[in-house]
């Protein structure tokens, strides 16, 4: 598949390798995600969803198998290249927004660009304002995260994930701690950006209602893909 954003082949992950308490949590995952795809990753607690997401997000390295991002095999990349690739091509939305409390909403959205380019610039600010406008928070641009509601914080987090126009958005239960109505809003927002920018989205969720609204549902059970449809 030439337009695959990510490609996993026989990917395994074990913890405490070489010790008596060695535990393999992912047993040979084969998975690929095409550009513009909007997929849900579901499964019971402890099935390895978060681990899989972290590996795809280059926060953790797999123990075995292959992981390619944008056609590049990540096993060959150095630590620094991995970090740069992560910053450039992957946007994260975490369950608990994970905004930086010391920075305003605007600065939080600018942060990926600040990191990538070393310092804030006008372009980063313009893009961030645009994104905040798109998530309906332009008026709150200079507020600190603590001054925003949970839904607003998550919108800022989505705006931040999109700051560098990544090819892949990874969301770990983005609506997990929000009420149904707000959760629907956030979900709709992700969907909208997915359509606009043609980025691939992989969303971990517990909510079958939301999963049903995705193009594709990948079900993980005990570290194996049990269903993919």
């Amino acid at each position: 598949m030439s337009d695959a954003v990510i490609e996993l082949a026989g990917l395994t992950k074990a913890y405490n390798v070489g010790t008596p308490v060695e535990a393999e949590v992912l047993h040979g995952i084969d998975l690929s995600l095409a550009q513009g795809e909007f997929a849900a990753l579901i499964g019971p607690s402890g099935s390895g969803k978060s681990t899989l997401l972290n590996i795809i997000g280059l926060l953790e390295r797999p123990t075995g198998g292959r992981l390619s991002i944008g056609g590049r095999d990540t096993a060959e990349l150095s630590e620094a290249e991995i970090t740069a690739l992560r910053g450039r091509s992957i946007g994260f939305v975490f369950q608990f927004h994970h905004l930086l409390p010391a920075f305003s909403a605007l600065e939080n959205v600018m942060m990926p660009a600040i990191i990538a380019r070393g310092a804030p610039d006008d372009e980063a600010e313009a893009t961030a304002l645009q994104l905040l406008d798109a998530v309906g928070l332009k008026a709150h641009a200079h507020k600190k995260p603590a001054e925003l509601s949970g839904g607003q914080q998550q919108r800022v987090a989505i705006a931040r994930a999109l700051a560098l126009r990544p090819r892949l958005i990874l969301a770990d239960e983005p609506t997990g701690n929000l009420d149904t109505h707000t959760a629907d809003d956030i979900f709709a927002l992700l969907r909208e950006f997915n359509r606009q920018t043609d980025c691939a989205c992989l969303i971990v969720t517990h909510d079958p209602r939301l999963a049903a609204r995705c193009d594709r549902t990948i079900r993980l059970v005990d570290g194996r893909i049990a269903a993919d449809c």
Partner: protein
Amino acid sequence: MKLRLPFAPLVALRFLREGRMQTLLILAGTTGGVAVIVFLTQLITQLQAQIVDRVLGTQPHVVIRPLEEANRRAFDDPASAVVIEPRAQRLRSVDQWESIARLAAAMPGVTAVSPTVTGPAFAVRGQANKSVALMGIDAERYRRIVRMEEYMVAGRFAVDGTRAVIGSELAKDLGIRLEDKLRVALPNGRDELLQVGGIFDIGNKDLNRRWVFVTLPLGQSLLDLPGGVSNLDLTVADIFDAQAIAERLQGATGLTVDSWMQTNAQLLAALRNQTVSNNLIRSFVILIVALGIASVLVVSVVQKQKEIGILRAMGASRAMILQVFLIQGALVGAVGSILGSLLAFGLLNMFSAIYRNADGSPLFAAELEPRFIVLAALVATGVGLASALIPARRAAKMDPVQAIRS
């Protein structure tokens, strides 16, 4: 145009601002430490300079004297038992003193050379007589050895013909005022009637009682040393070079050459000990400040785990995280050194108002040398940087996944 800080200083500043109480405490500690160091250094430097200045105010930096006379064995037969009696040292001239004076004057670091002839005499007035040291000098040249004009309480420091300059204690003892006459009598039977043209107070009662300055020729003839001088007094540019210069002169002339550092060895040792204890205090203060900065930053790294994880997830490299914490340490050091210098200046002002000399003048000047501020800033920033090293490396090593989850 907005001021836009690069990533590392931007995040460092925000982190410091966010941890208000911690930042204030660590800053207060650093400020206090810097203040103590700057204050102590300035105070001790000033007091030491004053002590040295006072000691050297009444004595030359280097003195050249003739070699002492010694008895030698007439024959070398080891079988003969010989008792060699030490010889009484008579007043002698420095041999070839004019060429030696030229040699000394040409030596790098020597700024003045003054020939002096000095010997014991009695100052006699009416029924009273006092033992004094007769000093035959060239006033112009002697002035560059001891700044006599600064000590004059009456008249001028000038000798000419039979005009002489005496100390205030001698004047008081003998009831002498300016332009009064004074007779000096020498053990060799010579005597001369002097006219007092100046009275000095050098700040030392003994010297005020003993020194009687006359012209070099008069001194020479009274002391039976025509054309000769008993010693050459030298002033050097850097007082702590005196010993080296004295040694070089000794090598070149073969005469006895003493520097003030030898004659005041005890004072010098005391000053050195003071410097050592001062350095010890400074080292401990630096250590304590460094530990303070390091411990606060270690706590801060733990508190900021999640933020570090988020930044890493967004593409921040380990090096960037390292910089964020190093800059925090350096900033605390730099700001602490500025505040500390200000505090030290305040302390100096306060203490110079409290502590005064016997004459009411301040014991030390309430001034702060810029070089101490610059030095303090450099040291404090360096210490801040160094003490941030361990916490910063810990932050950089942090696993982003662990950090975000916690």
